[in-house]
Protein backbone atom coordinates (compact mmCIF):
# COMPACT_ATOMS: atom_id res chain seq x y z
CA UNK A 1 0.00 0.00 0.00
CA UNK A 2 2.92 2.31 0.70
CA UNK A 3 4.21 1.60 -2.78
CA UNK A 4 0.77 2.43 -4.14
CA UNK A 5 0.93 5.73 -2.32
CA UNK A 6 4.35 6.52 -3.79
CA UNK A 7 3.33 6.03 -7.44
CA UNK A 8 1.13 8.45 -9.30
CA UNK A 9 1.21 11.54 -11.47
CA UNK A 10 4.25 12.50 -9.43
CA UNK A 11 6.43 9.60 -8.28
CA UNK A 12 7.70 9.95 -4.76
CA UNK A 13 10.43 7.68 -3.34
CA UNK A 14 9.04 5.02 -1.02
CA UNK A 15 11.38 6.11 1.77
CA UNK A 16 9.97 9.65 1.64
CA UNK A 17 6.43 8.27 1.74
CA UNK A 18 7.31 6.28 4.85
CA UNK A 19 8.75 9.37 6.42
CA UNK A 20 5.67 11.47 5.70
CA UNK A 21 3.25 8.77 6.86
CA UNK A 22 5.22 8.10 10.04
CA UNK A 23 5.39 11.77 10.87
CA UNK A 24 1.63 12.12 10.56
CA UNK A 25 0.92 9.01 12.58
CA UNK A 26 3.47 9.56 15.35
CA UNK A 27 3.62 13.34 15.21
CA UNK A 28 7.43 13.34 15.17
CA UNK A 29 10.20 13.81 12.63
CA UNK A 30 11.38 16.54 10.32
CA UNK A 31 8.96 18.44 8.14
CA UNK A 32 9.77 17.82 4.48
CA UNK A 33 8.59 19.41 1.25
CA UNK A 34 5.03 20.67 1.98
CA UNK A 35 3.91 19.89 -1.59
CA UNK A 36 4.96 16.25 -1.31
CA UNK A 37 3.45 16.13 2.12
CA UNK A 38 0.15 17.31 0.73
CA UNK A 39 0.19 14.82 -2.13
CA UNK A 40 0.98 11.92 0.14
CA UNK A 41 -1.06 12.71 3.19
CA UNK A 42 -4.02 14.66 1.84
CA UNK A 43 -4.58 12.97 -1.51
CA UNK A 44 -2.95 9.59 -1.93
CA UNK A 45 -2.98 7.97 1.50
CA UNK A 46 -6.74 8.31 2.08
CA UNK A 47 -7.31 7.27 -1.51
CA UNK A 48 -5.34 4.06 -1.20
CA UNK A 49 -6.97 3.28 2.15
CA UNK A 50 -10.40 3.87 0.70
CA UNK A 51 -9.67 1.70 -2.33
CA UNK A 52 -8.65 -1.12 0.01
CA UNK A 53 -11.80 -0.76 2.12
CA UNK A 54 -14.10 -0.57 -0.89
CA UNK A 55 -12.48 -3.60 -2.51
CA UNK A 56 -12.76 -5.59 0.71
CA UNK A 57 -16.36 -4.56 1.31
CA UNK A 58 -17.62 -5.32 -2.19
CA UNK A 59 -15.82 -8.66 -2.33
CA UNK A 60 -17.14 -9.81 1.05
CA UNK A 61 -20.67 -8.70 0.20
CA UNK A 62 -20.46 -10.62 -3.06
CA UNK A 63 -19.20 -13.78 -1.36
CA UNK A 64 -22.01 -13.72 1.20
CA UNK A 65 -24.72 -12.95 -1.35
CA UNK A 66 -23.58 -15.80 -3.60
CA UNK A 67 -24.08 -18.24 -0.76
CA UNK A 68 -27.28 -16.65 0.55
CA UNK A 69 -29.12 -17.01 -2.72
CA UNK A 70 -27.25 -20.17 -3.80
CA UNK A 71 -26.30 -18.51 -7.04
CA UNK A 72 -22.75 -18.11 -8.31
CA UNK A 73 -23.75 -15.04 -10.32
CA UNK A 74 -25.04 -13.08 -7.37
CA UNK A 75 -23.35 -9.85 -6.33
CA UNK A 76 -24.50 -6.37 -5.26
CA UNK A 77 -25.29 -5.54 -8.89
CA UNK A 78 -27.48 -8.58 -9.57
CA UNK A 79 -29.44 -8.08 -6.36
CA UNK A 80 -30.26 -4.52 -7.36
CA UNK A 81 -28.34 -2.72 -4.59
CA UNK A 82 -25.99 -1.01 -7.03
CA UNK A 83 -28.83 0.22 -9.23
CA UNK A 84 -30.54 1.72 -6.20
CA UNK A 85 -27.36 3.55 -5.36
CA UNK A 86 -27.00 4.74 -8.98
CA UNK A 87 -30.51 6.14 -9.01
CA UNK A 88 -29.91 8.01 -5.76
CA UNK A 89 -26.65 9.45 -7.03
CA UNK A 90 -27.98 10.36 -10.47
CA UNK A 91 -31.01 12.11 -9.00
CA UNK A 92 -28.80 14.34 -6.89
CA UNK A 93 -26.27 14.98 -9.68
CA UNK A 94 -28.83 15.97 -12.31
CA UNK A 95 -31.72 17.46 -10.41
CA UNK A 96 -29.62 18.77 -7.54
CA UNK A 97 -30.92 19.80 -4.16
CA UNK A 98 -33.56 22.10 -5.60
CA UNK A 99 -36.05 19.62 -6.88
CA UNK A 100 -35.42 17.02 -4.25
CA UNK A 101 -35.53 18.99 -1.03
CA UNK A 102 -34.41 16.70 1.76
CA UNK A 103 -32.77 14.09 -0.43
CA UNK A 104 -30.59 16.73 -2.08
CA UNK A 105 -29.20 17.66 1.30
CA UNK A 106 -27.67 14.21 1.57
CA UNK A 107 -25.23 14.85 -1.22
CA UNK A 108 -24.33 12.24 -3.81
CA UNK A 109 -22.92 9.77 -1.26
CA UNK A 110 -25.87 10.02 1.08
CA UNK A 111 -28.35 9.60 -1.73
CA UNK A 112 -26.46 6.59 -3.07
CA UNK A 113 -26.48 5.00 0.37
CA UNK A 114 -30.20 5.60 0.79
CA UNK A 115 -30.81 4.29 -2.73
CA UNK A 116 -28.88 1.07 -2.08
CA UNK A 117 -30.72 0.40 1.17
CA UNK A 118 -34.09 1.22 -0.37
CA UNK A 119 -33.38 -1.19 -3.21
CA UNK A 120 -32.30 -3.79 -0.66
CA UNK A 121 -35.50 -3.34 1.33
CA UNK A 122 -37.59 -3.62 -1.82
CA UNK A 123 -35.86 -6.81 -2.95
CA UNK A 124 -36.22 -8.18 0.56
CA UNK A 125 -39.95 -7.41 0.62
CA UNK A 126 -40.62 -8.79 -2.86
CA UNK A 127 -38.38 -11.81 -2.40
CA UNK A 128 -40.37 -13.24 0.44
CA UNK A 129 -43.61 -15.12 0.44
CA UNK A 130 -45.43 -16.07 3.62
CA UNK A 131 -42.37 -15.01 5.58
CA UNK A 132 -40.03 -17.31 3.66
CA UNK A 133 -37.08 -15.96 1.70
CA UNK A 134 -36.59 -18.34 -1.17
CA UNK A 135 -33.25 -18.02 -3.00
CA UNK A 136 -34.57 -18.04 -6.55
CA UNK A 137 -37.32 -15.57 -5.74
CA UNK A 138 -34.76 -13.25 -4.15
CA UNK A 139 -32.52 -13.29 -7.21
CA UNK A 140 -35.40 -12.72 -9.60
CA UNK A 141 -36.80 -9.94 -7.43
CA UNK A 142 -33.33 -8.38 -7.36
CA UNK A 143 -32.97 -8.53 -11.12
CA UNK A 144 -36.47 -7.11 -11.69
CA UNK A 145 -35.99 -4.29 -9.18
CA UNK A 146 -32.61 -3.59 -10.77
CA UNK A 147 -34.14 -3.22 -14.23
CA UNK A 148 -36.86 -0.89 -12.99
CA UNK A 149 -34.31 1.28 -11.18
CA UNK A 150 -32.08 1.26 -14.23
CA UNK A 151 -34.86 2.47 -16.50
CA UNK A 152 -35.75 5.26 -14.09
CA UNK A 153 -32.06 6.17 -13.93
CA UNK A 154 -31.84 6.24 -17.72
CA UNK A 155 -34.89 8.47 -17.89
CA UNK A 156 -33.40 10.91 -15.40
CA UNK A 157 -30.19 10.96 -17.43
CA UNK A 158 -32.16 12.15 -20.47
CA UNK A 159 -32.96 15.29 -18.53
CA UNK A 160 -29.32 15.90 -17.71
CA UNK A 161 -26.93 18.39 -19.31
CA UNK A 162 -23.77 17.02 -21.00
CA UNK A 163 -21.61 18.11 -18.04
CA UNK A 164 -23.90 16.34 -15.61
CA UNK A 165 -23.91 13.28 -17.83
CA UNK A 166 -20.14 13.11 -17.64
CA UNK A 167 -20.29 13.31 -13.86
CA UNK A 168 -22.96 10.60 -13.85
CA UNK A 169 -20.87 8.35 -16.05
CA UNK A 170 -17.81 8.78 -13.87
CA UNK A 171 -19.83 8.07 -10.77
CA UNK A 172 -21.37 4.93 -12.24
CA UNK A 173 -18.00 3.54 -13.26
CA UNK A 174 -16.63 4.19 -9.81
CA UNK A 175 -13.69 6.06 -8.45
CA UNK A 176 -11.92 6.69 -5.17
CA UNK A 177 -10.23 9.86 -6.45
CA UNK A 178 -12.20 12.08 -4.12
CA UNK A 179 -11.18 10.22 -0.98
CA UNK A 180 -10.87 12.28 2.17
CA UNK A 181 -9.74 11.32 5.64
CA UNK A 182 -13.13 12.37 7.00
CA UNK A 183 -14.86 9.55 5.07
CA UNK A 184 -12.60 6.84 6.35
CA UNK A 185 -13.72 6.27 9.96
CA UNK A 186 -17.30 5.32 9.02
CA UNK A 187 -16.27 3.16 6.09
CA UNK A 188 -13.54 1.46 8.14
CA UNK A 189 -15.91 0.64 10.98
CA UNK A 190 -18.62 -0.68 8.66
CA UNK A 191 -16.29 -2.78 6.49
CA UNK A 192 -14.31 -4.26 9.39
CA UNK A 193 -17.32 -4.96 11.59
CA UNK A 194 -19.30 -6.53 8.76
CA UNK A 195 -16.38 -8.71 7.73
CA UNK A 196 -15.85 -9.93 11.30
CA UNK A 197 -19.56 -10.52 11.95
CA UNK A 198 -20.07 -12.28 8.63
CA UNK A 199 -17.04 -14.48 9.30
CA UNK A 200 -18.55 -15.46 12.64
CA UNK A 201 -21.56 -16.68 10.68
CA UNK A 202 -19.13 -18.73 8.56
CA UNK A 203 -20.09 -22.09 9.99
CA UNK A 204 -23.76 -21.45 9.27
CA UNK A 205 -23.00 -20.15 5.80
CA UNK A 206 -21.13 -23.40 5.19
CA UNK A 207 -24.20 -25.33 6.29
CA UNK A 208 -26.26 -23.35 3.81
CA UNK A 209 -24.12 -24.81 1.03
CA UNK A 210 -25.68 -28.18 1.83
CA UNK A 211 -29.11 -26.87 0.80
CA UNK A 212 -31.89 -25.21 2.79
CA UNK A 213 -33.49 -28.34 4.18
CA UNK A 214 -30.17 -29.94 5.11
CA UNK A 215 -29.05 -26.71 6.78
CA UNK A 216 -32.27 -26.71 8.79
CA UNK A 217 -31.54 -30.27 9.86
CA UNK A 218 -28.10 -29.03 10.95
CA UNK A 219 -29.80 -26.67 13.39
CA UNK A 220 -29.60 -23.49 11.29
CA UNK A 221 -32.61 -21.19 11.22
CA UNK A 222 -32.24 -20.66 7.49
CA UNK A 223 -34.82 -17.94 7.11
CA UNK A 224 -33.52 -15.81 9.95
CA UNK A 225 -29.93 -16.31 8.78
CA UNK A 226 -30.86 -15.14 5.30
CA UNK A 227 -32.69 -12.08 6.65
CA UNK A 228 -29.88 -11.01 8.99
CA UNK A 229 -27.13 -11.49 6.45
CA UNK A 230 -29.06 -9.76 3.69
CA UNK A 231 -29.43 -6.69 5.89
CA UNK A 232 -25.72 -6.69 6.75
CA UNK A 233 -24.75 -7.12 3.08
CA UNK A 234 -27.03 -4.28 1.99
CA UNK A 235 -25.55 -1.98 4.65
CA UNK A 236 -22.04 -2.94 3.67
CA UNK A 237 -22.69 -2.49 -0.04
CA UNK A 238 -24.54 0.78 0.48
CA UNK A 239 -21.67 2.20 2.52
CA UNK A 240 -18.94 1.41 0.02
CA UNK A 241 -20.90 2.27 -3.11
CA UNK A 242 -21.81 5.59 -1.52
CA UNK A 243 -18.15 6.61 -1.33
CA UNK A 244 -16.80 4.91 -4.45
CA UNK A 245 -19.65 4.73 -6.94
CA UNK A 246 -20.60 1.73 -9.00
CA UNK A 247 -17.45 -0.36 -9.03
CA UNK A 248 -18.54 -3.59 -10.66
CA UNK A 249 -17.09 -7.08 -11.02
CA UNK A 250 -15.07 -7.06 -7.77
CA UNK A 251 -18.00 -8.51 -5.81
CA UNK A 252 -18.53 -11.18 -8.43
CA UNK A 253 -14.99 -12.19 -9.26
CA UNK A 254 -12.90 -11.98 -6.10
CA UNK A 255 -14.99 -14.48 -4.08
CA UNK A 256 -14.78 -17.01 -6.91
CA UNK A 257 -11.04 -16.49 -7.23
CA UNK A 258 -10.61 -17.30 -3.56
CA UNK A 259 -13.02 -20.26 -3.73
CA UNK A 260 -11.22 -21.74 -6.71
CA UNK A 261 -7.85 -21.48 -5.03
CA UNK A 262 -8.45 -22.10 -1.32
CA UNK A 263 -11.91 -23.62 -1.10
CA UNK A 264 -15.36 -22.55 0.00
CA UNK A 265 -15.15 -22.75 3.82
CA UNK A 266 -16.50 -19.32 4.75
CA UNK A 267 -14.41 -19.04 7.88
CA UNK A 268 -11.40 -18.89 5.57
CA UNK A 269 -13.12 -17.56 2.47
CA UNK A 270 -14.45 -14.30 3.92
CA UNK A 271 -11.23 -12.94 5.45
CA UNK A 272 -9.22 -13.96 2.39
CA UNK A 273 -11.84 -12.46 0.09
CA UNK A 274 -11.63 -9.20 2.02
CA UNK A 275 -7.86 -9.23 1.74
CA UNK A 276 -7.76 -10.05 -1.96
CA UNK A 277 -10.54 -7.56 -2.70
CA UNK A 278 -8.54 -4.86 -0.93
CA UNK A 279 -5.32 -5.68 -2.75
CA UNK A 280 -7.08 -5.89 -6.09
CA UNK A 281 -8.79 -2.54 -5.86
CA UNK A 282 -5.62 -0.82 -4.62
CA UNK A 283 -3.84 -2.16 -7.70
CA UNK A 284 -6.66 -1.22 -10.03
CA UNK A 285 -6.78 2.27 -8.57
CA UNK A 286 -3.04 2.53 -8.99
CA UNK A 287 -3.38 1.62 -12.65
CA UNK A 288 -6.34 3.92 -13.11
CA UNK A 289 -4.17 6.92 -12.24
CA UNK A 290 -0.99 5.79 -13.99
CA UNK A 291 -1.90 4.26 -17.39
CA UNK A 292 -3.01 7.57 -18.80
CA UNK A 293 -1.07 10.06 -16.63
CA UNK A 294 -2.04 12.62 -15.56
CA UNK A 295 -5.63 11.75 -16.51
CA UNK A 296 -7.56 9.13 -14.62
CA UNK A 297 -9.65 6.20 -15.74
CA UNK A 298 -12.72 5.15 -13.80
CA UNK A 299 -12.25 1.99 -11.71
CA UNK A 300 -15.17 0.15 -13.25
CA UNK A 301 -13.46 0.07 -16.64
CA UNK A 302 -10.34 -1.58 -15.30
CA UNK A 303 -11.83 -3.99 -12.73
CA UNK A 304 -13.44 -6.09 -15.44
CA UNK A 305 -10.88 -5.47 -18.17
CA UNK A 306 -8.05 -6.80 -16.00
CA UNK A 307 -9.96 -9.28 -13.89
CA UNK A 308 -12.04 -11.10 -16.48
CA UNK A 309 -9.22 -12.69 -18.51
CA UNK A 310 -7.49 -13.98 -15.40
CA UNK A 311 -10.81 -15.21 -14.05
CA UNK A 312 -11.58 -17.06 -17.28
CA UNK A 313 -8.17 -18.67 -17.25
CA UNK A 314 -8.79 -19.92 -13.72
CA UNK A 315 -12.23 -21.21 -14.70
CA UNK A 316 -10.78 -23.25 -17.53
CA UNK A 317 -8.13 -24.71 -15.29
CA UNK A 318 -10.58 -25.91 -12.63
CA UNK A 319 -11.82 -29.46 -13.13
CA UNK A 320 -14.36 -29.51 -10.29
CA UNK A 321 -16.71 -27.25 -12.22
CA UNK A 322 -17.22 -29.74 -15.03
CA UNK A 323 -19.31 -32.11 -13.01
CA UNK A 324 -21.77 -29.67 -11.48
Amino acid at each position, binding site marked *: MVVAVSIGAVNIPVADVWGILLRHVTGRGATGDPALDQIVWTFRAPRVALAALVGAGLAVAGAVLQTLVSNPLADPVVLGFSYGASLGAVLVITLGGVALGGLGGLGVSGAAFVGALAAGALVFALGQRQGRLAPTRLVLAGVAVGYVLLSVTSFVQLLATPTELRTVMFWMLGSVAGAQWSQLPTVTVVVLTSTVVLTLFGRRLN*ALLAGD*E*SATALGVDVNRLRAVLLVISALLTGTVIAVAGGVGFVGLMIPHLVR*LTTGADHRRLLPLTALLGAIYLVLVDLLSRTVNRPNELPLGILTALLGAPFFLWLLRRNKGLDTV
Partner: protein
Amino acid sequence: MKLTVDQLHITLDRKQILRDVHLEAAKGDIVGLVGPNGSGKSTLLRTVYRSLRPADGVVRVGGDDVWELSARTAARRTAAVLQDAGTTTGLTVTEIVALGRTPHHGLMGRDGAEDRDAVAEAVERCGVGPFADRDYATLSGGERQRVLLARALAQRPRLLVLDELTNHLDIRARFELLDLIRTTGITTLAVLHDLDLAARLCDHLVVLHEGAVVAAGPVLEVLTPDLLRDVFGVRGATERHPDGVVRITYAAQPLAFAREPEPEPEPDPEPQPEPAKR
Protein backbone atom coordinates in the same frame (compact mmCIF):
# COMPACT_ATOMS: atom_id res chain seq x y z
CA MET B 1 -33.54 -42.14 21.19
CA LYS B 2 -37.25 -42.71 21.02
CA LEU B 3 -39.29 -40.96 18.36
CA THR B 4 -43.01 -40.39 18.78
CA VAL B 5 -45.29 -38.68 16.30
CA ASP B 6 -48.80 -38.15 17.57
CA GLN B 7 -52.02 -36.83 16.01
CA LEU B 8 -50.12 -34.96 13.36
CA HIS B 9 -52.05 -32.91 10.84
CA ILE B 10 -50.36 -30.90 8.12
CA THR B 11 -52.07 -28.63 5.63
CA LEU B 12 -49.98 -26.84 2.99
CA ASP B 13 -51.57 -24.31 0.64
CA ARG B 14 -55.04 -25.45 1.78
CA LYS B 15 -54.26 -28.99 0.79
CA GLN B 16 -54.24 -31.56 3.52
CA ILE B 17 -50.97 -33.48 3.28
CA LEU B 18 -51.03 -35.50 6.51
CA ARG B 19 -54.05 -36.65 8.47
CA ASP B 20 -53.88 -37.80 12.08
CA VAL B 21 -50.53 -39.49 11.72
CA HIS B 22 -49.23 -41.58 14.55
CA LEU B 23 -45.81 -43.18 14.46
CA GLU B 24 -43.35 -44.60 16.94
CA ALA B 25 -39.76 -45.74 16.78
CA ALA B 26 -38.33 -47.36 19.89
CA LYS B 27 -34.70 -46.76 20.82
CA GLY B 28 -32.43 -48.56 18.34
CA ASP B 29 -35.26 -49.44 15.96
CA ILE B 30 -35.04 -48.97 12.23
CA VAL B 31 -38.42 -47.88 10.99
CA GLY B 32 -39.14 -47.72 7.29
CA LEU B 33 -41.60 -45.18 5.94
CA VAL B 34 -43.09 -46.40 2.69
CA GLY B 35 -45.91 -45.34 0.44
CA PRO B 36 -46.59 -44.27 -3.14
CA ASN B 37 -45.41 -40.94 -4.54
CA GLY B 38 -47.25 -38.03 -2.98
CA SER B 39 -48.38 -39.97 0.07
CA GLY B 40 -46.74 -37.45 2.43
CA LYS B 41 -43.52 -39.26 3.38
CA SER B 42 -41.12 -36.36 2.89
CA THR B 43 -43.52 -33.96 4.61
CA LEU B 44 -43.63 -36.25 7.61
CA LEU B 45 -39.83 -36.30 7.70
CA ARG B 46 -39.74 -32.50 7.60
CA THR B 47 -41.74 -32.34 10.80
CA VAL B 48 -39.23 -34.69 12.45
CA TYR B 49 -36.09 -32.73 11.57
CA ARG B 50 -37.88 -29.55 12.60
CA SER B 51 -38.23 -27.89 9.25
CA LEU B 52 -42.02 -27.82 9.17
CA ARG B 53 -44.05 -26.80 12.20
CA PRO B 54 -47.30 -28.72 12.51
CA ALA B 55 -50.45 -26.74 13.29
CA ASP B 56 -51.83 -29.81 15.05
CA GLY B 57 -50.07 -32.66 16.71
CA VAL B 58 -46.69 -33.21 18.22
CA VAL B 59 -43.32 -34.74 17.31
CA ARG B 60 -41.27 -35.91 20.27
CA VAL B 61 -37.63 -36.92 20.14
CA GLY B 62 -36.33 -38.36 23.39
CA GLY B 63 -39.58 -37.36 25.05
CA ASP B 64 -39.37 -33.64 24.16
CA ASP B 65 -41.52 -31.80 21.67
CA VAL B 66 -39.01 -30.76 18.99
CA TRP B 67 -40.58 -27.29 18.80
CA GLU B 68 -39.96 -26.79 22.52
CA LEU B 69 -36.26 -27.36 21.82
CA SER B 70 -34.05 -24.80 20.09
CA ALA B 71 -33.10 -25.53 16.48
CA ARG B 72 -29.59 -26.36 17.60
CA THR B 73 -30.61 -28.64 20.47
CA ALA B 74 -32.98 -30.50 18.18
CA ALA B 75 -30.22 -30.88 15.59
CA ARG B 76 -27.87 -32.35 18.19
CA ARG B 77 -30.43 -35.11 18.63
CA THR B 78 -31.61 -35.62 15.08
CA ALA B 79 -29.49 -35.79 11.93
CA ALA B 80 -30.94 -36.02 8.44
CA VAL B 81 -29.70 -37.11 5.04
CA LEU B 82 -31.98 -35.48 2.51
CA GLN B 83 -32.46 -35.13 -1.19
CA ASP B 84 -31.52 -31.46 -1.59
CA ALA B 85 -28.08 -31.42 -3.12
CA GLY B 86 -27.17 -27.81 -2.36
CA THR B 87 -24.24 -26.16 -4.08
CA THR B 88 -21.40 -27.96 -2.39
CA THR B 89 -18.73 -27.13 -4.92
CA GLY B 90 -15.52 -26.00 -3.33
CA LEU B 91 -15.98 -28.01 -0.14
CA THR B 92 -13.82 -31.07 0.34
CA VAL B 93 -15.25 -34.30 1.68
CA THR B 94 -13.78 -33.65 5.12
CA GLU B 95 -15.28 -30.17 5.18
CA ILE B 96 -18.70 -31.55 4.34
CA VAL B 97 -18.46 -34.17 7.05
CA ALA B 98 -17.43 -31.39 9.44
CA LEU B 99 -20.70 -29.57 8.67
CA GLY B 100 -22.18 -32.14 11.01
CA ARG B 101 -20.60 -30.23 13.88
CA THR B 102 -22.64 -27.10 13.08
CA PRO B 103 -25.29 -27.59 15.80
CA HIS B 104 -22.62 -28.12 18.42
CA HIS B 105 -21.36 -24.53 18.16
CA GLY B 106 -22.61 -21.01 18.61
CA LEU B 107 -21.28 -18.03 16.68
CA MET B 108 -18.06 -17.89 18.68
CA GLY B 109 -17.45 -21.65 18.80
CA ARG B 110 -14.15 -22.98 17.53
CA ASP B 111 -13.39 -26.54 16.53
CA GLY B 112 -12.08 -28.62 19.41
CA ALA B 113 -10.84 -32.14 20.06
CA GLU B 114 -14.39 -33.51 20.25
CA ASP B 115 -15.19 -32.12 16.80
CA ARG B 116 -12.07 -33.64 15.29
CA ASP B 117 -12.84 -36.99 16.91
CA ALA B 118 -16.42 -37.00 15.71
CA VAL B 119 -15.38 -36.14 12.15
CA ALA B 120 -12.54 -38.68 12.10
CA GLU B 121 -14.82 -41.41 13.47
CA ALA B 122 -17.53 -40.68 10.91
CA VAL B 123 -15.00 -40.60 8.07
CA GLU B 124 -13.60 -43.94 9.19
CA ARG B 125 -16.96 -45.56 9.73
CA CYS B 126 -18.37 -44.59 6.34
CA GLY B 127 -15.12 -45.39 4.53
CA VAL B 128 -14.78 -41.97 2.93
CA GLY B 129 -11.15 -41.58 4.04
CA PRO B 130 -9.64 -42.52 0.64
CA PHE B 131 -11.23 -39.45 -0.96
CA ALA B 132 -11.27 -37.19 2.10
CA ASP B 133 -9.52 -34.30 0.35
CA ARG B 134 -11.42 -34.45 -2.91
CA ASP B 135 -14.05 -31.96 -4.00
CA TYR B 136 -17.53 -33.34 -3.39
CA ALA B 137 -18.54 -32.46 -6.94
CA THR B 138 -16.06 -34.98 -8.35
CA LEU B 139 -17.49 -37.99 -6.47
CA SER B 140 -19.74 -40.76 -7.74
CA GLY B 141 -23.32 -41.11 -6.49
CA GLY B 142 -22.51 -43.86 -4.03
CA GLU B 143 -19.53 -41.97 -2.65
CA ARG B 144 -21.64 -38.84 -2.22
CA GLN B 145 -24.28 -40.63 -0.21
CA ARG B 146 -21.61 -42.11 2.04
CA VAL B 147 -20.22 -38.61 2.59
CA LEU B 148 -23.66 -37.28 3.52
CA LEU B 149 -24.19 -40.18 5.89
CA ALA B 150 -20.80 -39.43 7.44
CA ARG B 151 -21.90 -35.83 7.89
CA ALA B 152 -24.99 -37.04 9.71
CA LEU B 153 -22.94 -39.37 11.94
CA ALA B 154 -20.49 -36.54 12.76
CA GLN B 155 -23.49 -34.80 14.29
CA ARG B 156 -23.41 -37.65 16.87
CA PRO B 157 -27.19 -37.90 16.63
CA ARG B 158 -29.49 -40.20 18.50
CA LEU B 159 -32.03 -40.26 15.72
CA LEU B 160 -31.27 -40.61 12.02
CA VAL B 161 -33.72 -39.42 9.39
CA LEU B 162 -33.03 -40.69 5.88
CA ASP B 163 -34.85 -39.61 2.73
CA GLU B 164 -34.26 -42.02 -0.14
CA LEU B 165 -30.65 -42.56 0.82
CA THR B 166 -30.12 -45.27 -1.77
CA ASN B 167 -31.79 -43.67 -4.79
CA HIS B 168 -29.89 -43.97 -8.05
CA LEU B 169 -27.25 -46.22 -6.53
CA ASP B 170 -26.12 -49.55 -7.86
CA ILE B 171 -27.10 -52.63 -5.93
CA ARG B 172 -23.80 -53.10 -4.15
CA ALA B 173 -23.68 -49.48 -2.98
CA ARG B 174 -27.23 -49.89 -1.70
CA PHE B 175 -26.43 -52.94 0.36
CA GLU B 176 -23.26 -51.37 1.73
CA LEU B 177 -25.16 -48.29 2.87
CA LEU B 178 -27.90 -50.33 4.49
CA ASP B 179 -25.36 -52.46 6.35
CA LEU B 180 -23.63 -49.31 7.51
CA ILE B 181 -26.86 -47.95 8.94
CA ARG B 182 -27.63 -51.23 10.70
CA THR B 183 -24.24 -51.26 12.39
CA THR B 184 -24.59 -47.75 13.82
CA GLY B 185 -27.33 -48.88 16.20
CA ILE B 186 -28.92 -45.42 15.99
CA THR B 187 -32.70 -45.14 15.97
CA THR B 188 -33.59 -44.55 12.33
CA LEU B 189 -36.59 -43.35 10.36
CA ALA B 190 -35.99 -44.02 6.68
CA VAL B 191 -38.09 -43.19 3.66
CA LEU B 192 -37.50 -45.90 1.10
CA HIS B 193 -39.06 -46.20 -2.29
CA ASP B 194 -37.92 -49.71 -2.91
CA LEU B 195 -40.02 -52.11 -0.87
CA ASP B 196 -37.44 -54.89 -1.15
CA LEU B 197 -34.81 -52.66 0.39
CA ALA B 198 -37.25 -51.52 3.05
CA ALA B 199 -38.00 -55.12 3.93
CA ARG B 200 -34.28 -55.88 4.09
CA LEU B 201 -33.29 -52.93 6.25
CA CYS B 202 -36.16 -52.27 8.59
CA ASP B 203 -37.51 -53.80 11.79
CA HIS B 204 -40.82 -52.10 11.32
CA LEU B 205 -42.64 -50.46 8.47
CA VAL B 206 -45.13 -47.61 8.49
CA VAL B 207 -47.23 -47.30 5.35
CA LEU B 208 -48.54 -43.90 4.33
CA HIS B 209 -51.34 -43.64 1.82
CA GLU B 210 -52.93 -40.31 0.87
CA GLY B 211 -51.58 -38.68 4.00
CA ALA B 212 -52.73 -41.26 6.50
CA VAL B 213 -51.06 -44.25 8.14
CA VAL B 214 -52.78 -47.33 6.78
CA ALA B 215 -50.56 -49.97 8.33
CA ALA B 216 -47.71 -50.22 10.80
CA GLY B 217 -45.79 -53.07 12.36
CA PRO B 218 -43.27 -55.80 11.56
CA VAL B 219 -42.43 -56.09 7.88
CA LEU B 220 -44.17 -59.41 7.19
CA GLU B 221 -47.35 -58.34 8.94
CA VAL B 222 -47.51 -55.07 7.05
CA LEU B 223 -46.68 -56.07 3.49
CA THR B 224 -49.65 -58.31 2.85
CA PRO B 225 -50.96 -59.01 -0.63
CA ASP B 226 -54.03 -56.90 0.18
CA LEU B 227 -51.91 -53.91 1.17
CA LEU B 228 -49.68 -54.24 -1.89
CA ARG B 229 -52.80 -54.20 -4.02
CA ASP B 230 -54.73 -51.42 -2.25
CA VAL B 231 -51.85 -49.02 -1.60
CA PHE B 232 -49.28 -49.70 -4.27
CA GLY B 233 -51.55 -51.06 -6.98
CA VAL B 234 -49.49 -54.18 -7.58
CA ARG B 235 -50.08 -57.87 -7.12
CA GLY B 236 -47.49 -59.56 -4.98
CA ALA B 237 -46.70 -61.71 -2.00
CA THR B 238 -44.14 -61.42 0.78
CA GLU B 239 -42.32 -64.26 2.43
CA ARG B 240 -39.30 -64.84 4.61
CA HIS B 241 -36.75 -67.01 2.89
CA PRO B 242 -34.72 -69.58 4.78
CA ASP B 243 -31.72 -67.20 4.75
CA GLY B 244 -33.77 -64.78 6.88
CA VAL B 245 -34.26 -62.18 4.14
CA VAL B 246 -37.79 -61.01 3.42
CA ARG B 247 -38.56 -61.02 -0.29
CA ILE B 248 -41.46 -59.74 -2.27
CA THR B 249 -42.53 -61.57 -5.37
CA TYR B 250 -44.49 -59.43 -7.81
CA ALA B 251 -46.92 -60.82 -10.33
CA ALA B 252 -46.16 -60.37 -13.99
CA GLN B 253 -48.86 -57.77 -14.65
CA PRO B 254 -48.97 -55.52 -11.62
CA LEU B 255 -51.18 -52.92 -13.29
CA ALA B 256 -54.09 -55.31 -13.59
CA PHE B 257 -55.12 -54.47 -10.05
CA ALA B 258 -54.76 -50.75 -10.28
CA ARG B 259 -57.64 -50.45 -12.72
CA GLU B 260 -61.30 -51.15 -12.44
CA PRO B 261 -62.04 -54.57 -13.81
CA GLU B 262 -62.80 -54.14 -17.48
CA PRO B 263 -64.65 -56.44 -19.78
CA GLU B 264 -62.33 -58.71 -21.62
CA PRO B 265 -61.29 -56.84 -24.73
CA GLU B 266 -62.06 -58.41 -28.03
CA PRO B 267 -58.92 -60.14 -29.14
CA ASP B 268 -57.40 -58.05 -31.91
CA PRO B 269 -57.34 -59.88 -35.17
CA GLU B 270 -53.78 -61.03 -35.41
CA PRO B 271 -52.07 -59.02 -38.10
CA GLN B 272 -51.04 -61.47 -40.71
CA PRO B 273 -47.37 -61.25 -41.45
CA GLU B 274 -47.04 -59.97 -44.93
CA PRO B 275 -45.43 -62.38 -47.25
CA ALA B 276 -41.89 -61.38 -47.71
CA LYS B 277 -41.42 -59.66 -51.00
CA ARG B 278 -38.43 -60.57 -52.87
